[in-house]
């Protein structure tokens, strides 16, 4: 039995990884009563827990929302440092996995998860694979896409959704011509959006090899994306006053003054709540392209679940992890509205043919499934990205509020600070 093999492998692993300071028993037989603690901000976790506990009545799963992702990482770090209160399963955004994995704070799952690779879109699997190990299993995905407000487009005389970045630029001018408050999109120091443009253009500014990190924003593809965005900012075509997730943002999406969002597919789940008045106006389209030829996509967000090295119940934790990200729990979560990187789901007709009134009865999942398949691989995040994105916010604040400086200068300063910090933290950063 495949399942039994996996459990056996897991017990071996748990035995071999017994922590020095642990008081509990490890490698417990799977019939013992176990209590698992899951840290996650994902609303679909609870739904999957029910099905899991029917299969494993001896395992109770306690789901804790430890706050925003940022708060959760802090809490996890603190718990690991304190040696108490470490959860068994934790949700991570993809960029934060190296931070925990490289210093050995996460369990390597490559043995138990051998053979899972092809069940996820390549870029998602790439996110959880670090230096030959697998440190988490992908649980949801954010393929970058273009959400656009068709009513605003029509008002501005944009008849077709832009398919290239040049067309996007032309559309931006038309939309801003509608009035001072109309913009094609907003950007207030949104690093993930900028990185998704770079990603799609083929730039790979970060290269991580063990503890060696190299950072380079000078590459031709990176420069192409940065200069393009700089042009739109310089010409005043982007609303820099409005930050994503803010009240202003909700309002502008709601009244149609922001025509598009270049963001992750997860926006589908919250857009109807944020912009109820725009029901029927929004559509989803692939990212505009940099050049002719096959479609290239990028990623903006998404997360995975991992097991901390300090967990006392690794074996049971893996059972849940497998159920949640790979087994029967996946369908339950999809029914709850999760967007997952599992190819089984993305390729199923049932999923692709789903329509939504909010998106004018568009089969929006088909667009997003395709966008997921299109995501280019080979992207890496530095192992201190959580710190780095905070630093980026500080560095870029001045430019976005006063207009002094440029993206290139910001990225340059960012690189300097990352290099200093990384070296200070024991990495070798070039």
């Amino acid at each position: 039995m495949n399942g039994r093999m996996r459990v056996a492998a897991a017990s071996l692993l748990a035995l071999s990884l017994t922590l020095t300071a642990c008081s509990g028993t490890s490698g417990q037989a799977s019939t013992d009563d176990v209590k698992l603690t899951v840290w996650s901000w994902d609303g679909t976790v609870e739904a999957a827990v029910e099905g899991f506990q029917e299969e494993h009545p001896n395992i109770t799963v306690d789901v804790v929302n430890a706050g925003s992702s940022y708060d959760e990482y802090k809490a996890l770090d603190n718990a690991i440092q304190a040696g108490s209160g470490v959860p068994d399963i934790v949700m991570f955004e993809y960029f934060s996995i190296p931070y925990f994995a490289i210093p050995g704070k996460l369990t390597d799952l490559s043995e138990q998860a051998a053979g899972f690779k092809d069940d996820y879109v390549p870029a998602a699997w790439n996110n959880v694979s670090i230096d030959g190990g697998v440190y988490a299993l992908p649980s949801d995905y954010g393929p970058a896409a273009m959400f656009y407000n068709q009513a605003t487009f029509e008002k501005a005389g944009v008849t077709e959704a832009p398919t290239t970045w040049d067309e996007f630029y032309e559309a931006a001018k038309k939309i801003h011509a509608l009035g001072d408050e109309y913009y094609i999109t907003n950007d207030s120091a949104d690093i993930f959006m900028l990185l998704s443009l770079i990603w799609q253009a083929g730039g790979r500014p970060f290269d991580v090899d063990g503890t060696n990190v190299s950072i380079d924003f000078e590459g031709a593809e990176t420069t192409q994306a940065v200069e393009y965005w700089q042009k739109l900012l310089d010409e005043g075509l982007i609303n820099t006053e409005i930050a994503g997730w803010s009240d202003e943002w909700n309002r502008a999406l709601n009244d149609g003054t922001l025509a598009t969002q270049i963001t992750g597919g997860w926006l589908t789940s919250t857009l109807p709540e944020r912009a109820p008045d725009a029901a029927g106006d929004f559509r989803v389209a692939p990212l505009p392209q940099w050049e002719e030829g096959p479609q290239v996509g990028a990623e903006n967000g998404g997360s995975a679940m991992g097991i901390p090295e300090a967990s006392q119940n690794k074996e049971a934790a893996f059972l849940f992890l497998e159920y949640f990200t790979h087994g029967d729990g996946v369908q339950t979560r999809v029914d709850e509205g999760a967007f997952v990187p599992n190819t089984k789901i993305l390729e199923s007709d049932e999923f692709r043919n789903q329509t939504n009134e909010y998106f004018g009865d568009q089969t929006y999942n088909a667009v997003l499934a395709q966008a997921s398949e299109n995501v280019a691989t080979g992207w890496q995040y530095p192992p201190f990205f959580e710190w780095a994105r905070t630093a980026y916010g500080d560095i870029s604040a001045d430019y976005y509020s006063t207009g002094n400086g440029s993206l290139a200068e910001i990225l340059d300063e960012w690189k300097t600070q990352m290099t200093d910090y990384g070296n200070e933290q024991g990495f070798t950063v070039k």
Partner: protein
Amino acid sequence: MFIAPFAVLFALVFIIPIGFAAYLSLFQDKLIGGQVFVGLSNYIQLFGDAKFWNGVIRVMVFTAIQVPVMLIVAMSLAMALDSKRLHGTKFMRISVFLPYAVPAIVSTLMWGFMMGTKYGLIGNLNEAVGTSIDPFRPDTTMISIGIMITWAFTGYNMLIFYSALKAVPHELYEAAAIDGATEFQVVKMIKLPALRGSLVVTIIFSIIGTFQMFNEPQILSSMVSNSGITTYYTPNLYAYNLAFTGSQQGYAAALALVMAAITIAIAYVVQIRGMKDALE
């Protein structure tokens, strides 16, 4: 020993952690390699850290402006309320003190929404008059925070002054009236001297409060965008972010201790006069 329970807990809550912070400040936490003893290098780095001084200067400038303004207003209010020349004295006294009861999170939320340009009163004003006032721009955010903090603590300070004025023997006013003293003379000769002691206390508490500023910028930073609130906006915010985001706890401990030293030094300078009589 009556003092024992307090002393034991005090040691657990204050003394041991401070000692521990001093110990931590001599180490550096590395993601790769763990804790390394670095001696005083955290302190040396701190003195050359522009982010740190940026925050220190910001709270100092804020303190230099906000504390005098708040205390002068509080004193004037106390005298006005004490003068018995107002209609509705009691109602006003309670109203002015009321904000002290409001948690920082609630006051920041209220002011943050009210001063917001989207659904705040400022937004309504802008729509009505066609202005484009935005209280949360980098150059005005600190003023907005000043409005919140002044709102929260003026009443508290007013009550301290008011209590001090209440303690003035009534005969003094009678005597002054018989001598034909003007209102201004009464303020100068009787009321202001009576407030001296309480002024020391209020100055110290206000300085300590503003130097530790954390709640307002921390809550606002996730509420408003482009406000210029960086992760090192105030020294406390910087220490918090260092410790809990960059996992630079040793450095954060050094920063916190330096801030504590600066605050204590200032407090003692102000306090020495006030404490003299008390310790006799």
